Structure formats: C-alpha cells, structure tokens
C-alpha cells in the first residue's frame, strides 16, 4: 500500500487512488485512417514492464484529477509524479 503525492492534494494513501494503466498512449486523432493493426496497437498493446514504467493514476476518492507517475513495478518505488499534459522525462 503506497503513499502517493497527488500533484493537487499532496500525500495521500493509495486506497484513495485508481490505477489507469500505461501513460502517454494518445488516442489517434484520425482513427479511420488507421489499419486494423495500427488501431489494435493503440487499443490492446501495453508494455507491462517489470521495472520503471510510465503510468496514469486518478485521485478517484479525492480531487478526481488524472496525473502521470513513473513507478518501478518491481519494488513500487515512485520515481516521479507530473501532471496530465506534461511531457515525460527523457529517460
């Protein structure tokens, strides 16, 4: 059970949050232009890394804001939290 530093509310218990899967998968602007494979890539394919992963989280029982998190899935260490719309760190 980790502690998450919501960029809007501050440190809160994990039970207030909902995980939302991999981050920075943008919905295609023109889905109709995509082949089945390209659309499937967007729709289904997730990296599911053991190690450092970029994730979306939602403060569901708080401010209800979505934000991004860089988390090491092997030990749950949260390396960075940044707002929706901000670019991911380079590494």
């Amino acid at each position, binding site marked *: *059970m980790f502690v998450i530093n919501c960029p809007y509310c501050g440190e809160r218990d994990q039970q207030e949050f909902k995980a939302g899967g991999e981050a920075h998968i943008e919905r*295609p602007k023109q*889905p109709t232009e*995509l082949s089945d494979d390209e659309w499937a890539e967007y729709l289904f394919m997730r990296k599911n890394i053991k190690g450092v992963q970029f994730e979306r989280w*939602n403060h569901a029982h708080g401010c209800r804001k*979505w934000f991004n998190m860089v988390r090491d899935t092997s030990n*749950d260490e949260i390396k960075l939290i940044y707002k*929706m719309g901000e670019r991911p760190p380079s590494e």
Partner: protein
Amino acid sequence: MPANLRVQSSEFIDETVRISFKFNGKTYHGFKGDTLASALLANDVHLVGRSFKYHRPRGIMTAGSEEPNAIVQVNDKTNRTEPNVRATEVEIYEGLEASSQNCWPSVNFDIGGINNAISPFLPAGFYYKTFMWPASFWEKYEYFIRHSAGLGKSPTEKDPDIYDHRNIHCDVLVVGAGISGILAAKNAAKNNLKTLLVDEKNELGGATIYQNREFNKIDNQSSSDWIKKEIQELRNIKNLEIKTRTSVAAYHGYNYLLARENLTDHLEKKDKQDKIRQRLLKIRAKKVILATGALERPLIFNNNDRPGIMLSSAVKKYADFYGVVSGKKNVFFTNNDSAYESALCLHNKGIKVEAVIDIREKSNSNIVKAVESAGIRIHWSHTIVDTKGYKRLNSISTMKLSNDGLSVTGNKTDISCDCLGIAGGWTPAVHLFTQSGGKLTFDENNKVFLPNKYPSDQLSVGSCNGDFKIKEIISNLSNNLKQFLKIEKTDFDNLSVESEVENSKRNIWLLPSDRAIGKTKPFVDYQNDATAKDIKLALREGFRSIEHVKRYTTTGMGTDQGKLGNMHALGIIADTAGVKMGELGTTTFRPPYTPLTFGTIVGRNVGEYFDTFRRTPMNDWQIKNKAEFENVGQWKRAWYYPINGESIHEAVQRESMAARESAGILDASTLGKIDIQGSDASEFLNRVYTNAWSKLGIGKCRYGLMLNEDGMVFDDGVTTRLSENHYLMTTTTGGAANVLGKLEDYLQTEWPELDVYLTSVTDHYATASICGPNSKKILNKIIPDLDLSEESFPHMSFKNAQIGKIKCRIMRISFTGEHSYEINVQANYGLDIWEKCMEAGKEFNITPYGTETMHLLRAEKGFIIVGQDTDGTMTPIDLQMDWIVSKKKYDFIGKRSLYRSDTMKEDRKQLVGLLTDDPSIVLEEGAQIVSELNQSPVNMLGHVTSSYYSPNLKKSIALAVVRSGKKMMGKKLFIPMEDKTINVTVVNPVFFDSENKRLNA
C-alpha cells in the same frame, strides 16, 4: 495431591491471585501472570496435543508465539471458541476452558495414533500421490482424508465480540520491546520523534528482564535490574506510545504495517462484555525499527518430538519468569553456549541437571566453566541418537559424534530424564523484514540469514540483525541508531557491558543416528510432521526449488509457518543437494506473522455495515408497503410488491398487467444522473455517444448508447437538453460511477480543450416514473395547468413544471413502451411527489411496481439491459441496434473498432428473441442453445439472457444471444436441460406493440 512444579516465587507472577481453569475437562490452578502453558507445566502436564499427520503425542515446545505443538481450542462449544491458539500465548483467566486438538476420542488415547504405526506408508507427498493414482480410488480415500483434515473447530455461532480498526501515523515505529527495542524507542522519542513501541507480549523487556544475574551486567548491575529501570523511565517519556499484547502481522511497502492489538483475551468473561476484543492497527510510519529478536532453533535428531523435549530457552523462561520447572531430571542438548545459561538457572534453583550433551569438542567460555564447577557432567562431541517415552520423555541415548559430524561411533549410553532442553543456536526473526521486500544474505560463520538490502526507510537492530550478545547489541545499536535517526548521540553511548556467553557454535543441520535415516524420525516441522527423511525423499524424487519441496513435504505450512524448522529444512536441502545455503532460494515469509482472527480483519464491517448501501427517498414508503428489495450496485431497489402472500411470480404478473392496462409507478431515483454544462457540451456528447447530438432541440430527450473504445456496449440512457449548453444525462443504476469516471478521463486526458463540466447529481434528484394508458390523466390531476397535449409535450421531450411550490423536471420518456412520464424533483421532496402520484392515481388503481416488472415490461418491447443482455462482448450491431450508430459522424468512442475484421464478422453472437414451442415453458436465464442434438462435441450457439412469462402476451418470451442469430429468424433451435429438451423458435426481439402505438395512446 496434584503435582506442583512451581519452585520459586517470581516477580512476574502474582501468587495472591489464584486462578482456576479447565484443560481437557479437568480443573487446574495457576496464578495471575501465567500462560496456559506455564500453568500446565506447573501442574506437570506436558502432553497437550497430537501432531497433524501421525497423531504423535506432543508437548509444549516453546514459551512464545513460535510454538508449533501446543495449539489448543479455547472455550469450545461457546460462541467465543477459537481454534489453533498457542497455549504459550494464552494468558489464563478464571473460567478459561481449553482442549487439545487433532485427537479423538482424547489426547491420551487417540485413534489416529495408528498413523504413527503405519507411517512408512504415509511418506512425503502421500496426499498428492493418492490424488494422482489410481484415480478410481480417490472417492474411497476422500472420505477418510476429509475427516482427518484440518486443525481445530471453527465457531458455529455468531461472534459476540466487537472488533475495531485504527489508523496510526508516527515518525518511528519500533517493533519488539526487548533491550534493543526499548533503547531505540527511548532515544527516538527523546529526540522529539513521535514514536510507537509495540510488543506481542504483555510485559516489556524481552529476554533481558529475566536474564542470569551473574553473567550479564550492564552499567555495573545485573542486566535485568538495569532494564527494569529503563522500562520505568520509558513510561514517562512524552511522544512515546507503548502497546503491549500487540503483534505486527504484516509489513507492506512504504512502511505500512498491520498489527493486532489484543485487548480482552486475557480477561474473564464478565470483563470481556461490551468491550473491543481486538483492534487492527493500520500503521503508517516514516521510519521503522525492527527489534524482533531471534528464535531459538531446535536440533534435528531421531525422535526429537516427545513431550518433555523443549527449547532450552523455553526451559529457562519457564523457570526464571514463571517460577516453573519443566522436569525433575533435566538434560540439555546443545551446539552452543546458550544451553549452559539454562542449565545454571535450574541448578541454582536446586533442580537436578543430569548432563549437558554438547556436539562441540570444547568451549572455554566462563559460563561453561561455571557449569563444570557446579558438578554437571558435560558430554563433549556427543549427540543424541534416540529418545524414549511415548507420552512423556523418560530417557535419551547418546553416542560419540564422528569428527565430520556425519556418523556416530562407540557405545550407546542411556540417560534417564523427563525434560530435555535443546539449543541449536538462534535464528534472527527476519520475517517482517522480508515481508517488506528486504533481501537477505547468508552469514556462513553463524549460519544465519541476515537483513542485507532495505527496501524502505527501516533498520533491523539487535538479535534480528545477528547481534546475539548484549555487548554487540548495545554497541552496534548506538552507532546504527545515530545514523538512522540522524541524531548526534544516544544516552547509552558509553555504557559498560559484560557478558560471559561466547558465540562459538558447531552447526549440523541433521544429526546422525546409529540407525539408518529411513528408520528414524527426525522432525523438522513439528506441526506438520515433516521429517528430514521426507525432505530427502522429495529431493530424491527430483524436487529442487525450495518452494516445491516445501509444498510437497508441507514443511513450514502449518499455523506456525515453520518458525522453528525452516532453517533446518533449508540446511538439509543444501547439504543433500550439495549446494550453498540460499542457492536454491529461501522460502517466502508471508503475512501474517501470527494468525489473525477474521473478526480483527473485518473490524466493524459486519452485518448491516458489511457494505455501504444507498436508499432512495421513497425507501421508507416501500418498506411500509411490504416491498421486497434487491441490491443493484449499492442501491436497495424495490424488487416487487407482494400483496396477500403473493409469490414473486404472481406479484410480477399482476404489476405488469396493471402497468399496461391502467397505470403503474416505478421508483427510478437510482438511475445515474450527470449534469453536463459548457459551451462544448453538444460536441462532447457527439464524441461519447454513438448517435448524433448536435441537432437535438432544447427541451428534447434522446436515447444514447455509449461504447468502450473496443466497440463493445458500455452503458446506455436518455439524455435531455435542458438549455443551449446544459444537458442532463442518465445512466444505468449500476454503471453511474464508471460512466462519470470514463467521461472525466476523456475530458482531462484526451480532450482537455473542450469546455465541459460534469457533476454527478444522482443523489440530488428523486424520480417517480408513471406509465400506462392513464398516466396522462394522473399527471393532469397533479399539475392541472401543464399542457400535456401531443403538440406541446410529445414523446421524448421535457418540461419544467411546478407541483405546488416544488419545482420539477418532467421527461416524457418510456422504458416500458407505454405512455409515461418521469417526474424528477429535488430528493427531499421525492416521497411527497410519490405520495401525490399514488393519491391522484387511486381512481385508476395505480400500481407500484418494482425492478422485476420493469425488466419484464422492457423485455416485451425488446429493450436491452446493459449487463444482462450484454456482457462486454456485444457491439451495437450484434444487438441489432444499427439504427443508433451514426454513419455520418467522423468519430466517436469505439467507432473505429466497429470496422475491425473481427467485429464485422457475421457469425458473432447476436441478440434475438426466442419463443418456446410450448408457450407455458419459461426458459432459464443462462441456458445454452444448440442447433443439433446428439452432436459431439456440442456446438454451443449462445445462451438465454432474459426470460419471462408475459402476462400481456399470455406466453413465455426470451431474449438470447445466438451465433449468426440475425440470419436465423424462424429457425428452430434446442435448449437441452438436465431433464428435458426445450424446442424454441428464433424471432424478432420486439414481442409487443412493434409499431409503438401505445407510446402516444
């Protein structure tokens, strides 16, 4: 005259308070401060239980929570009974009743003891092997295995006690109040850190508090006197909270720990009443100091499990702490110095110590010399090869150990004794450390696993970190604590410490016997009866991974989780496989450290508090009118309203006919309602629904279908345009929270440029839905000045109105196919409006109906219920709802997926109607549908999703999903049931009023 082995008054036992208790039906006495184990030993009772598999007689082995044998059922046949309680942890109280487990008819004569005689036929993996072969025998085995499985009896009555949860936040949590924990907590608190100190025992001070006075000195006084002064000081420190009888069960990531605080288990019945029994502490600590100590190891030798064989440290604790000796003729068996402390402790009380058997060649520490000069015989380089005594140890046999420790030589010597203290060295209690994700390293010198890599801000101190001597403990603690707490000094930086015990040890995981291993019983896991022989067998049969060997032999899988024997199991595996310790992995320590009761885990969330539930403003009226309720999401929804003892079927038939013949009323308050505002609201709806929204006129309503991005139906509902930039969306009752979540997700992450604001208003409005041919007349009676003409208020439109002073929103929408109105008012007027409708509808026999009738009425019309007729694999096309999917819109959520090759397949499961050939047979929902009988394998085409007897059509109707169903109109299919086959015909799913004439009737 009962035996009395209490030899000395103890300061920890209050002999002025005599307590009587029952064990296996017999009354015994003990004193305040006794545990069940110490009180039994004082009465010379060693035999307390039978082992799990062989039903061998077992005695008290330890004096703590690691106890594998002395597990008992307390207060059997009462509502407070609890199985698998460790006698070593039960504090006795007046009226306590405890009994042995796993024995029948009694612990003294146990039929299952025959398993011991036939043990050659019960090798490791016995149960797995019988599962596998021969398969036909399984049914025969099962009867016996089921009857002998399980330890103890679970309570059959409702638990009378109260349990609680508490959240605690602190700067420093110290687990364990032995010498290290006490010093750590004191210095943390004194440095202005909010500190919590917990210990599983009822006394602080750990083992130091009863340590030998002569051999351990701190600050020029005995260590036990010194620690008592420290404990006194502790009580007056602010910032420090102390909790005893509190066992940390789990250590999760980010320093989140769960502990069980025991509040009333030690009290007698009258004092337990109306008090919280146990409290689950949910602790979030900035820093954690583990001072969990070490557990003494047994030695693994032939027949090392007889009652009377105990850990040497336990013999000492019973004598020093409780004033009880465990035997009249004592022998100690050791591989290190610590047994000598126990031997001296008994000797100094005038109790006979026959011998010390030491597998080492020699030790020169002062404590060994003291034992020698006390005239106690020490057998160096000797081991025990066998023991005798079925229900109580009566003698041991020793032989000389060879230099390599693998065999024995010379003559066998028997020594008669009734208590054997065994000392195999110490195992640091690293359970919590590894639970938190910490990595261990193996220390070859001391043969122990030690904390190596900390996963969070924590520190292990004292013997759980491998410091076994007071001297090391204190000097290492001082240095580590300064670094960890970032403080400049501790108040014990320059403490003088003297200790006469040395660390030297000779480690042999499995001691040899003069008999072949196959003919011996060296127990590694006492509770589960796993022997070294079983482990070796598992390795011979090809098991390599520790986790596999553990499961195959059940080593470490009892309620004690193998606290005593796991290290030996690892050692024997390493020796046998010829690898280094830890190379084949270590077993994983899982929470809880000691068992938790279910009561503690659930706390107050029992009975009506098990889950939160939501009630509509009309709920009281519904209860008064004898409605039956069903749970929909968290809502309590009126299901049907039986009158005069009607069955559900009778009530629903009556309600359904009334709604179509005259008037019905439904509480629709539970539907999700989302208020949508903003200049881009129309565009937003365009993107989230499959149909077009931009041209919806103000004051109009429209049904919408929402998909997931994968094209599957997610939710549906009617949305009303209240004004230019203001909509009210309704969702399904169960889907409301998910719909809001999804809409917010898209708004915040994909379309942040849209000017749209969402507010959940589900709880803000109550909704009464009146339907039927007379609904218009009823509404007219309530609001006479509202124009209800078709021109002014057509189907799928909305009006603001006022009933007296109550403002309401009225939608003319229908889920039943009847002319109907949904009246929405501020929630606190909900009941008032409902009663007004009932009053006005009286002359039309307005009939309240519940969800069951609603389902029936909509099924007659072929309207789907998301989640009943769909299951996350149905597209709108599959549902034959092509009409609602806009071809013109460039994009909406899920659109692209409707053109994937898979979703476009024609043989997908599609929604159809089914009529039974015999109109009186109602299909079972979930029943499978086939086109061919007697086919193998059976080609299952789909299943029934909704099924009712329609009173309005006077026949059975059903909705179903069927592969290629759209092409099967008129086709005959079969529904094979257990006792018959039902013939059905595929039809259009709209059964009733397919021209929608009644909507405008």
